[in-house]
């Protein structure tokens, strides 16, 4: 009796094993067939384009220059292309006419703007950007909220409005980006801006070449 049951069990096991082997052989053959079909039928992949998911800002400004400088008092009065003292003004663009800096937003974002120090070519004492409003990062120390010694004001403007308080080293809302003044930029929004720089009452450094960097940032909506 036991011997019979044992033989039946062995037979059943062999049958199952055989079925598994046959199934595996069929599966491998199928996979090879699919692979060969793909190889014969051209590329099995295709490109899918999706909408952008990047928050970005792109800045361009061809041929801009501080081309209109004025103010200051003799003998250090501004010339057309050079800033004079005290409180010389130099412009990139012209309010109401020309806005040479193009700022392109990516996805909907808040656009922030800030300025670096003005760095002299000889590596000497830098000028610090100061602000004239009640909410300032660095207050302007000169009379009538003018920049003090080794301070400067840099203001941006657009066809909508002009920033009367000035930029700072801290990135702040760019109220000139768009008509609403809240610095919220829609997807793909493009705006153009200009800049005016107001120099210090007096510089410590005698360099004739200075560099200022203005940064535009696309930030989360909050």
């Amino acid at each position, binding site marked *: 009796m036991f011997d019979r049951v044992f033989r039946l069990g062995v037979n059943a096991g062999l049958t199952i094993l055989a079925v598994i082997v046959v199934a595996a052989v069929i599966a491998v053959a199928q996979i090879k067939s699919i692979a060969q079909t793909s190889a014969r039928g051209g590329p099995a992949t295709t490109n899918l384009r999706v909408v952008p998911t*990047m928050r970005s800002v792109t800045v361009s400004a*061809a041929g*801009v220059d501080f081309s209109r400088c004025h103010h200051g008092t003799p003998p250090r009065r501004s010339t057309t292309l050079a800033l004079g003292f005290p409180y010389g003004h130099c412009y990139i663009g012209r309010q109401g006419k020309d806005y040479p800096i193009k700022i392109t937003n990516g996805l909907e974002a808040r656009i922030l703007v800030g300025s670096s120090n003005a760095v002299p070519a000889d590596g000497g004492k830098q000028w610090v950007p100061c602000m004239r409003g009640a909410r300032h990062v660095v207050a302007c120390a000169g009379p009538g909220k003018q920049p003090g010694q080794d301070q400067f004001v840099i203001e941006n403007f657009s066809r909508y409005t002009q920033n009367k308080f000035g930029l700072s080293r801290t990135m702040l809302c760019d109220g000139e980006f768009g008509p609403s003044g809240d610095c919220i930029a829609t997807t793909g929004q493009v705006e153009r801006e200009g800049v005016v*720089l107001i120099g210090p009452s007096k510089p410590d450094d005698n360099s004739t*070449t200075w*560099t200022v960097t203005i*940064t535009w940032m696309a930030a989360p909506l909050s």
Partner: protein
Amino acid sequence: MTCPAAAEGSVGVGIQENPVSLQKAAKAGQTYTLPAVHFANTGTQDESIRLRVERISDGKGRVVPATWIQFGSTQIQLSPHQETKVSIHLVVPDTARTGSYLSDIVAIGSAVVPSKAADFRPAAATKLEFRVVPGPSPGLFASVPRPLRVVILIVLLALLLYIGNRYFTRNFTVSVRRKKKPDGDVADNLDGTGGSRGANV
């Protein structure tokens, strides 16, 4: 103010819109791998993007100390319209305060629009957010230096062995008696009792 000669072209930086966040709560004293962050050069010039952690976004939460975040690379070179990902590790110190943290990962372009006037630079930011909960309990010997901890452990182990040997070791006495059965066979009767030291057979 004078600068290099003017040139055509644009500079641009992009960063993923989705916040970089840790799904589970971070524990003080642990290190975590955050999802890699995605960047792009959206301008027409080669770009070298610098990464840093800074609080830009409004909202509740503690400011993330910059030292807690380690980027796989803090400066990335990208050709125009090229994209890449950078790994981020969050290292939460033992002394971290519990609660929600919020800051931003900021990508700043190093390329500038060259002009005779000022330099213009792009930047983009995305949120970085996570929550810190208390770490594992420090334990009794947390403040003891590690070498001293090992010595204490060895002494305790030796003490345990001594006590075990002194008070809990029992030796067994096995006595064998021989009984005579009525039919004359001899049967061994083994009888074991514990308690005394030494063995009598």
